[in-house]
Each structure stands twice: as C-alpha cells, then as structure tokens.
C-alpha cells in the first residue's frame, strides 16, 4: 500500500481538527445555545434562516445540539478508550511477563465479559456511581471493555517474551523499566495504535446506544443517542432530527476507521 496521503486520511484529519474545535468551543460554533428554546421556530427544516440544520420540537437549534452531543460523545469515548487501554495493557503485560495463573485468569475473564450482558453491567454500575453523569458512563464503558486490550496485548507480548533479543536483554540484568521502554512497548505500538482507534469508534457507538436507551446522559441532555431517541416521534414530520445525529456518528466512525486502516497499512 502506498504511504502517500490518501483522500480518506485527509478527510479523517479534517474531521479530527473539527472535533478538536468542537471540544474547545462546543455549541458556540453554531451561534446558538443548545438549550435555548424558541417556540416560534418549532420543527424548522434545515437551511431555515439562522438554523443551518433546522430545529427540533422545542425550537432548539439542531446544529447546536449536535455539537454539544459531539463534545459529550467524543469526550466520553476518548476517556473510556484511555481507561480501557491503561488497565488492559497493564493487565495483559503482567499476564504475559509474569505468571501462568494470570494468563488463565485472563482467559476466564474474557469469557466472562463475552457472556455477561454489558447492558446490565452498565445500568447497575451507573446506578452505583450515583448520578447519571459523564463520568459514570465513561468509567463504566472503560471498566467493561478493557479485556479487549489485555487479550491482544497478552497474545502479542507472550510471543515477544519468547524472542531471543528480549530474553537476552532480561538475562543481562536489564532493569524491568528499561526492558519495557526499549524492547517491549515499542514492539506493541503498531498493534495498540490500531486497536485504540477502532476501540474509540466502538465506544462512540456504545455511549450513544446507552443514551439512546435513556441510560447515562441526564434526562433532556443533548447527546446523540438522546437526540436519536427523541427524533423517533417525529420521523415523518422532521426526519432531520434522526438524520443529523445518525450521520454525525457515521462520519466520526468512518474517520476513525480510516485512521486505523492507515495506521495498519503504515506498519505493514
């Protein structure tokens, strides 16, 4: 595969920059407050004066709500990915380096997370953490999904610790910190970077699915999942209420996937 910049990766870069702008400025980019109700402008179609993507049943600006939802979803997905990555990588490395029983425990844990419905886990953990806020959702997503990382890291690192150059380094008495910094972690970067990007995309979906079901985001919050759920009542009258968050989500996910694909091609 070519190493030059493909249109897909340029597009993904643009989406990434836009995300960054939204994370900083939020709904201010649309010129509206996402909570501002304007009953004289209910269910205005896209391209209505002052409302590029139209308004919802309370006259709230759809673009402003989309941007607010983006801040919430992307922020939550990023943090959840970071949590899953940190726990999963640590556990996977520990299991690969030391301890036969950790490897066995990891296999059981993987089977457990595969068969235990994440919905129940999410609902109960969110209830346990108290208010249905940003961190409750984010922590839950991170804590439920980290075995994905540990499984991959375990598989890769196990074969790594069998390699002669790593064993030689260990035998010469290299400190554990140096061993990891010089020989183990760099070798894991290609796989992990791809995994992180794809996991981020999955977290976007998971977070939106939860808020679609009314779990996670506080009632009435402008998140993509909540917007999709509210838009269901107006599917015929105002399809843009559904299409807006649906395509926002798809654009982010496709962008993340093309970054992942690009990283994969780079490291091959």
């Amino acid at each position, binding site marked *: 595969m070519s190493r030059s910049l493909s249109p897909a990766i340029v597009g993904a870069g643009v989406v990434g920059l836009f995300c960054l702008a939204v994370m900083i400025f939020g709904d201010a980019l649309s010129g509206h407050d996402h909570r501002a109700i304007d009953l004289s402008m209910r269910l205005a179609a896209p391209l209505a004066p002052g409302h590029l993507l139209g308004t919802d049943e309370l006259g709230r600006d759809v673009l402003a709500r989309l941007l607010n939802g983006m801040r919430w979803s992307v922020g939550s997905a990023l943090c959840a990915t970071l949590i899953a990555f940190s726990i999963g990588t640590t556990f996977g490395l520990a299991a690969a380096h030391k301890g036969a029983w950790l490897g066995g425990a990891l296999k*059981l844990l993987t089977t457990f997370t595969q068969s235990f419905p994440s*919905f*129940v886990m999410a609902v109960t953990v969110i209830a346990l953490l108290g208010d249905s806020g940003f961190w409750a959702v984010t922590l839950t997503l991170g804590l439920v999904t980290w075995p994905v990382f540990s499984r991959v890291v375990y598989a890769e690192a196990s074969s790594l610790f069998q390699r002669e150059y790593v064993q030689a380094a260990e035998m010469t008495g290299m400190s554990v910190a140096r061993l990891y910094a010089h020989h183990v972690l760099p070798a894991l970067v290609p796989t992990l970077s791809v995994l992180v990007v794809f996991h981020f995309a999955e977290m976007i979906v998971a977070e939106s699915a939860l808020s679609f079901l009314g779990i996670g985001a506080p009632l009435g919050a402008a998140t993509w999942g909540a917007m999709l759920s509210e838009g269901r009542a107006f*599917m015929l009258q105002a*399809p843009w209420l559904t*299409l807006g968050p*649906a395509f926002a*989500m798809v654009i982010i996910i*496709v962008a993340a996937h093309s970054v992942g694909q690009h990283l994969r091609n780079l490291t091959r």
Partner: protein
Amino acid sequence: MFSSSRMLGGLRDFAFVLIAAMTVLFFLLRLTGDPALVIAGEGASPAQIEAIRVEYGFDRSLIVQYGQTMLRLLQGDFGKSLTDGSPALGKVLASLPATLFLAAMALSLNLLISLPLGAWLGQKRTGAARRAVRGVLTVMQGFPGFVIALLLINLFAAGLEWLPSIGYGGPATWVLPVISVVSFLAPKLIRVVEANTHAALAADFVRTARSTGASENQILWRHVLPNALLGAVALIGAELAFMLTGLVVIETIFAWPGIGWLLVQSTLNLDFPVVQAVVFVMVVSVFLSNAVTEAVQALLDPRIRSRARAAS
C-alpha cells in the same frame, strides 16, 4: 474428535463463569436497588415494605441472602417475576425463541451474502467494481446497528409505509430487524473472507494445484474457499455469541419480544429474578455457541483434529 481433558477444562471454565456471573449480578443488583420497594409498589407504607422485607427474607444479611439465592439457583429455582408473579425462568424461555429466530435468520442471510461477496473481493485486488464495493463496505462499517435500524424505519416504515416498523408477527415484520442486524455484521465477515481468500490464493497448495493443471474454478471451490471459510468460522461464532447477548438495542427499537428486550425491561423495572434468569440463559447460550464453533472448527480443519487426537 475432542479429548476428554479439553472437554472437562471447558466445562470447568463454564461452571466458573456461570457462578461468577450470578455472583457479580447478585451483588450489583442488590447494591443498586431495594427489591422490597419494587414489590410493594408506589405508595406503600413503611410497615408494608417492612413486612415484605421479612416475608422475602430481604431483612437478613446480604451474605445469607446470597447463599440462599445460589442454593435456589442450584435447584433450578429462579423465583418469580416481581412485576407479574409468573416464574422468572418461564418468562425468559418464552422470549428465547424470538431471539434465536432473529439470530438464525440474520446468521443465514449474513453467510449467504458475505461468503460469495468476500470470495469475489479476495480474488483480485484491482478493478473498478471491486473498489466501489470496498468503498461501500468501508462506509457501511461506520453505521452502528441501531442507527441502521432507525434509518430503515425512517425510510421503509414511516416514509414509504411498505413495512411495519415494529412488532413480531408475520414475515413482513422480520425484514427490517434482520436487515439491520445483517448490515452491521456482514461488512466485518466480508472483510475476513476477503483477506483469507486472498491469503489462500497465494499459498503453496494453490500453486501446486495450479501446476497440476487444475482449473481456476476447481482451485477456488476445492482449495481456496474451504480455507477461507475456516478462518471465518471464529468470527461467525463470535457474531453468533454477540447476537445472543448484544441485540438489546435492536430488539428494543423493533419491540421484538426476545431476551434482549426482556433484559432491558426487567433491568429498568428492577425485576431482579427475571434479570437473573436472562443473564443465566445468556451465559449458557454463549457457552453453547462457543462449543458449537469449536466443534465446527475441528470438523473443518484436519490440523485441529489431529492436534486434539495427539493430545489425548
């Protein structure tokens, strides 16, 4: 086909996961809500709630209650639904066919689409048609299942009024749920079959077959596809396991009366016995689906078969 030690190991893991799931579930549920309040319903006096607590044994320590619950589960007693008093396990078993039916239809359609399409894509890297299909797949992979479901309802049920949007009646109600599930499972499977076909075409045994004068068709059907399928079995198994636990949102959107829908309802209603029974059935189904996947892999792959024989 299987060594007995491997089967024992699998059963031991299964028992462990089942006990762990029931334990985690028990404490998670008890820590998040008070079942007595659910049974008593709204507007019950503190005395009534207290009486229910004593009657159901909720006044005893959590550990004692945990022990009792596990003992009852061991005897196959899942208790009664807190909302309507019917047996919890019966409720779940009544919902299971709808989920199995959806999973079976989605699985069949997925295989029908993904295997030929994946094999076709894997034959060559170049060509305008193939590039176009790959582009479509890349975009399709960006669509979450429940978003596809909403868009399909938007288009076919609300807009064109061709199909019913929700429910579980005749064939017309099956179309949208099945398409929603397949459209997000298929792209992954197509990609894997494509990659495996491509790899198999470059393998030594294909070169050997070609040198003996086998036709391209023979090579594809006898040598390439069986190998490509082999690599895809693991993913198909994972997708099946996912469908047995993960169709929560799709079932909710279509009001499909399966175990995913039941799980959402019972969790939100704090109907503990039903949640427990659903999770139990899900853990068992995932185990069975994994066991079937392994058996199919062994059946298809002589290498796994001989390894298993050597181990026993």
